[in-house]
């Protein structure tokens, strides 16, 4: 028994099976990411405050270049096979996989940076102001308010916010990963050493300050639980990352088995590469939207 149209296209549709299959699958992927993008839009439109510039644009841009490059190499890999050149195919495919790994490493680094960066909210105004001053000197309250305004693009400095609503951002000594108030209190810790972020327009970190946990209302690293922004950022990019990983594994499998397949069924193998490439381009395409929406806007 043999299933028809695995290598040659069916005349009336002009398609071989796998190509139709992958396009159908991609259609469902469009709806999957579409659902997530819709959620993003709705949550953002409905939000009181939405942060900006929380992610490193140079890093994001770099990763965009990496993905685009991989898209070029994967299509070149396919074209090389079309020209009957498995040697070149290997080189291009290897480059593609390297790009994928590069992308994932950079992404992991970005995650790591976020997981060790903290925001602290204080119990009441007076306490908050006390710590703002400890962190940034006499003008501490103004400085943190400025940071707040900058973060949420509220270039209307006349607006008044109760300081207890404003968070102090920085690092905890020892760079703990994803800890929170409950965990710290649970570990019988009473104070933390906290290095606030550099004031706006400067790169110099202020000295670490001692923060009493009993003064803290909420403490969160930049994880999904931090805020809706980070929640959607991590969810979508993680899902996208999983697609990159999955795609890379499949492409690597093709790279490793090319010799065998090229001898046995060159046409079918070329089709597989085309199909794998289609998936890969789609992953790239998602990122093309993801990057401006999450990093820039």
């Amino acid at each position, binding site marked *: 028994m043999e299933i028809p149209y695995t290598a*040659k296209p069916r*005349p009336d549709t002009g*398609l071989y099976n796998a190509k139709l299959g992958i396009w159908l699958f991609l259609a469902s992927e469009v709806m999957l990411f579409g659902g997530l993008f819709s959620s993003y839009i709705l949550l953002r439109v*409905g939000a009181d405050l939405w942060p900006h510039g929380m992610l490193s*644009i140079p890093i994001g841009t770099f990763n965009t270049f990496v993905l685009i490059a991989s898209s070029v190499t994967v299509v070149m890999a396919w074209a090389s096979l079309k020209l009957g050149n498995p040697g070149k195919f290997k080189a291009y495919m290897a480059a593609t996989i390297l790009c994928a790994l590069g992308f994932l490493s950079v992404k992991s680094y970005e995650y790591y940076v976020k997981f060790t960066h903290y925001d602290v909210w204080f119990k009441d105004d007076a306490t908050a102001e006390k710590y703002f001053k400890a962190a940034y000197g006499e003008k501490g309250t103004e400085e943190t308010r400025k940071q707040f305004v900058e973060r949420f693009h509220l270039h209307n400095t006349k607006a008044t916010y109760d300081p207890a609503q404003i968070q102090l951002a920085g690092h905890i000594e020892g760079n703990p990963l994803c800890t929170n108030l409950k965990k710290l209190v649970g570990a019988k810790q009473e104070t933390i050493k906290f290095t606030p972020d550099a004031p706006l327009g400067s790169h110099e970190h202020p000295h670490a300050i001692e923060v009493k946990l009993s003064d803290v209302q909420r403490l969160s690293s930049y994880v999904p639980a931090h805020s809706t922004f980070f929640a959607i950022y991590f969810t979508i990019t993680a899902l996208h990352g999983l697609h990159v990983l999955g795609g890379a594994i499949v492409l690597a499998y093709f790279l490793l088995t090319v010799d065998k397949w090229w001898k046995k069924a060159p046409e079918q193998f070329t089709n597989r590469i085309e199909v794998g490439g289609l998936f890969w381009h789609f992953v790239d395409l998602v990122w093309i*939207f993801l990057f401006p929406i999450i990093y820039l806007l």
Partner: protein
Amino acid sequence: MSHDHSHSHGPGEACAHDHGHDDHNSPEYIQKTIKKYLAVGGILFGGTVLTVAMYYVHIPSVAITIAVALLIATVKAGFVAGVFMHLSDERKMIYGVLICTVFFLIGLMALTIWAMHDQPFQTLIDGKPA
């Protein structure tokens, strides 16, 4: 992929897709497309640079920023889909599937957003009826 024109059609079925240009499998054709791929790669790089540059320029209107950024992204996506994914030269069947998909996606987004904004009974802000 190309058509195998020699293939006999089943009874009652017609060839749905006909294209005039030369065989997609010929080396010359592939060579030509390779140039195209590299050009598109260049365009994608350029588009990215443009988007990021725009962010640093700080256009005062948020709406314009968003519109332009999304426009660039759409153009880039168009190139990826059209050239890398050969959509510009694809079969009817696939267009059909994708058109449905896009239609439903727009339905999902637009109707949900509309529904979330047509809530006249949402009332009582700070104790006073809105």
